[in-house]
């Protein structure tokens, strides 16, 4: 009797063990959900499920998809065992999809999850994770716009002295006295480059003065579109100053798009024509020193300005005045004394105060062990 009971117990234990071993690979994935992917254009659905236990025997997952009453179809490759999310990016708008996550064991045994509820992909109009960035942009833009319109009321805006810009009149005057030309180099940027646009705005101011003094202004361009814009701009400046006859279109010309051929061309002009004043304003790369040293060697007064901060040391070493970074963007406001433009500079300073405050606060909070600001910013990134 005892033997029989022992035999039954052993058999039962064996049966339970064997069934456990075999069922390990067959546990279906639990809590499978399929939802429209957040913050996308509606071209994907995200499927999530619970992570399987370590001893589950699952070696991977296969995603199956069904459109309306159609057949279940396999999508994508076999996913590794640790996966708990799959993004189906091959969907069509307006179609409802249901999903099944299939657990696959090493012995290729399978267990299917329950089918999810039908879901359609839909695009979002606003990326919620970009909210902090959006708020920052609104705040900063509002600060600038507020200051611009505030400046219209005639409130005087203080702008610190920028020696490079103070020297513009002196430099133009010098060229006029010496009876030599002014060479204006816009750098390598295209018309979409903000530094090039900033440089063009300075050129517009310089052109107004050269129009008055009737000093020849030579502008070799690196970009044909920039050249056309500059021609139009300088022509208007001469026209508005009442000297349309002094404008010579041939003085604004295209040299080449190649960086060093351009440098060689500009150097050639410098050496041959010996301009009294050289403006190097805009976006520059390795040719900056080649240009600035040649200008230095001919004894021209040189006013440089760039937002290419790695070229600043070269300009500082070889030029008389250098506009550093943002000073290039402030130049138009500084030279024209236009209240609205000056107002934008104050707005810029408000932005700086805001950033400085955020940096100081961030450092203090980090040092105090409060890390949510950093986490928030990392999320934005």
């Amino acid at each position, binding site marked *: 009797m005892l033997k029989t009971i022992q035999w039954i117990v052993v058999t039962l234990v064996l049966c339970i063990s064997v069934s456990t071993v075999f069922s390990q690979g067959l546990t279906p994935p639990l809590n499978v959900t399929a939802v429209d992917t957040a913050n996308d254009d509606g071209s994907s659905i995200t499927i999530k499920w619970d992570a399987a236990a370590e001893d589950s025997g699952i070696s991977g997952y296969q995603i199956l998809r069904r459109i309306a009453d159609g057949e279940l179809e396999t999508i994508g490759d076999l996913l590794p065992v640790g996966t708990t999310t799959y993004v189906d990016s091959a969907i069509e708008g307006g179609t409802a999809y249901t999903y099944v996550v299939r657990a696959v064991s090493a012995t290729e045994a399978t267990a299917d999850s329950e089918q999810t509820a039908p879901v359609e992909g839909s695009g979002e109009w606003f990326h919620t994770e970009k909210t902090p960035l959006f708020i920052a942009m609104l705040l900063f833009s509002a600060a600038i716009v507020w200051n611009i319109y505030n400046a219209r009321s005639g409130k005087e805006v203080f702008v610190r002295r920028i020696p490079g810009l103070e020297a513009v009149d002196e430099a133009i005057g010098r060229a006029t006295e010496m009876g030599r030309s002014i060479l204006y180099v816009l750098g390598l940027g295209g018309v979409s480059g903000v530094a090039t646009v900033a440089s063009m705005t300075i050129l517009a101011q310089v052109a107004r003065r050269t129009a008055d003094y009737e000093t020849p202004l030579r502008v070799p361009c690196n970009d044909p579109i920039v050249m056309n814009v500059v021609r139009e701009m300088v022509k208007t400046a001469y026209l508005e100053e009442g000297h349309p006859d002094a404008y010579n279109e041939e003085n604004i010309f295209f040299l080449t*798009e190649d960086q060093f051929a351009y440098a060689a061309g500009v150097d050639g002009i410098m050496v041959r024509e010996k301009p009294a004043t050289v403006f190097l304003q805009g976006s520059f*790369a390795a040719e900056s020193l080649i240009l600035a040293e040649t200008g230095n060697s001919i004894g021209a007064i040189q006013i440089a300005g760039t937002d290419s901060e790695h070229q600043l040391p070269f300009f500082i070493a070889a030029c008389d005045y250098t506009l550093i970074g943002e000073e290039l963007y402030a130049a138009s406001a500084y030279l024209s004394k236009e209240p609205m433009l000056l107002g934008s500079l104050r707005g810029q300073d408000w932005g700086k105060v805001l950033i400085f405050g955020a940096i100081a606060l961030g450092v203090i909070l980090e040092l105090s062990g409060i890390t949510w600001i950093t986490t928030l910013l990392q999320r934005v990134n």
Partner: protein
Amino acid sequence: MLSKLMNLDRRLIFIFVALAVIIPTLLPLNLPINVSEPTQKIYDYIDALPAGSTIMIAFDYGPSSLPELNPMAKAVLRHCFDKGVRVIGMTLYPFAPTLADTLITEVAEEAGAVNGEDYVFLGFRPGGEQVMLRMGISIGSVFEKDYTNTPLTEISMMKDITNYGQIDLILDLASGSTTDLWITYVNVKYNQQIAAGVTGVIVSNMYPYLQTNQLVGLMPGYLGASEYEKLIGVPEKGTQGINNASPVHVLILGLVIIGNIVFFIQRRREG
């Protein structure tokens, strides 16, 4: 005498520089090279890629920077072909296609890599950042054909590559500001991993991106090329270049020191 030294004729300095380059070119030096962390990071990243992965190399430089950047390209290509990592070459620089194609073909022949299977060179398209952005949507919409005019649809390795989603790393070899653009438009918008190899003159510009991990790694000029050559165990023109550049660096350092000594003496005399 002092004022003569202070206003040393620059042509004399030019002669010194020429000698400092020519002499070590004729009598090669063999200085020990230590691998810096930014270069090591690129090597490690590519080394960890499984065979069949894809990297894109942007040859954004012209003939002027060829001596500095070609050795880098060569070393990375060798490493990729050796590891079975597929390479897509392209450029945003109009003067680069010929030099890039010549280089890839040369390294591929040496490594036994097959065009269309192990590598493809797409050539040049104008538009800079627009090209970068458009490739994020579809590479085929920017480059319908490769450099040899084969439609992308007929190139086997491009069959499973639509956009940046299937590319594991973009290495920008740059002499200008293209790396900033790759980071601004491709890393930020498409979350693509970017590494860079740049000319010595713009190295310091890249450090902010290294700190924010927007650059996987960085090869700085000749130094970077020589370091990568050391890592793959094939010292070539990068190593030769950095050895030749060493005396010029010492010369400039010497000139600066002399200039300052003279400046101090003169200032003391003038009271």
